[in-house]
């Protein structure tokens, strides 16, 4: 009888721990081989046959197709440089330069990877259409209200994710630091 109760208890613990851990890792999107530069993180290995089992499970669950390493690299930002979650009701400045790449695109998504509806139907910028300063750097204002210059509307959503994709770029699995790949800064401004 003791054996029965004991093993039932152990099985219950196993199910709770095992499934709980699986759910947790998939919900938070855990993957190995992250390259973090400032607020931006990329998982170049996820675009190769050497993808780890966690990333593979996340991809199967969400239905996305990761960008292949021969095509480019995608950097994700969920928060600003100080680690605060990006809030679509606030103004956020993205400033600086990007790593070497033939083209890049910056796109705003909701946390589920959908584009966000807004009045001017703009979901992002490409490297060719952006307005730059004399030195080649750029500044993008992300926020709910229209601005002069490069304005990326948030549609007033609570949380969003910025994805900077570099196409035809030397940045990849071997990239380690921001010196090799200078990423633009993300600074939160006024919040009203």
């Amino acid at each position, binding site marked *: 009888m003791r054996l029965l109760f004991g093993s039932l208890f152990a099985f219950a613990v196993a199910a709770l721990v*095992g499934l709980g851990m699986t759910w947790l890792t998939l919900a938070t999107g855990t993957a190995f081989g992250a390259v973090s530069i400032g607020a931006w993180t990329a998982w170049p290995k996820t675009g190769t046959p050497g993808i780890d089992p966690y990333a*593979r499970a996340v991809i199967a669950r969400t239905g996305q197709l990761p960008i292949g390493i021969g095509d480019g690299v995608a950097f994700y930002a969920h928060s600003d440089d100080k680690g605060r979650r990006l809030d679509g009701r606030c103004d956020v400045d993205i400033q600086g330069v990007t790593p070497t790449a033939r083209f890049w695109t910056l*796109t705003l998504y909701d946390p*589920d990877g959908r584009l966000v509806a807004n009045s001017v139907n703009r979901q992002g910028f490409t490297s060719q259409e952006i307005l730059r300063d004399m030195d080649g750097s750029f500044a993008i204002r992300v926020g709910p209200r229209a601005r002069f210059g490069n304005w990326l509307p948030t549609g007033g959503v609570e949380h969003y994710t910025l*994805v900077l994709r570099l196409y035809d770029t030397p940045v990849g699995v071997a990239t380690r630091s921001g010196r090799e790949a200078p990423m633009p800064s993300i600074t939160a401004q006024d919040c009203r």
Partner: protein
Amino acid sequence: MTRWILWLLGGVLLGGIVHLTTVLWLPRTATQDAYSRLLAITPANAVTTLPDPSPDKVILPYMDPAFATAICRYDLASGPLQLSLNVSQAYTSVSFYTRFGTAYYAINDRAAGRRVIQLDLMTVQQRSEMPQEEDVTAADRLIVESPTVTGIIVLKALAPEPGLMPMAREALASGRCKTQS
């Protein structure tokens, strides 16, 4: 008391095994993965242009709206596949994914080095069954080996400005993928 702690430890250990097994097993049971989503809207071994991603219509999450995208959902059971695509003026790429969404190969217009990206896709077995002399004449043909019999090819053309989207779409309209037999 000690007995229960031992049972608890055993349970936690078993839980670790359950965790690893479910993570490894999950891709095979997913019903909402990219392949399953595309199964309903794309025929096999043909190029289908996807509608532009928009806020109210999500085919695959995290699609880049600056690109025109087309899909060739392939099935190599009846033989190797031939793929060709004219490159656009901006940036064109072709990415290969297995049935379970693993990116195993990608090439862009510059790496292809010509106006047309042309390649043959086959399984490892079909590659090994290829006659030797054909392999020699195939020297200028790019051969890609697919780890799975079925999978997805994503053809993408960049529209650097929204006004150039028709140009990107035109490049994708030249895309062909068909089995040889």
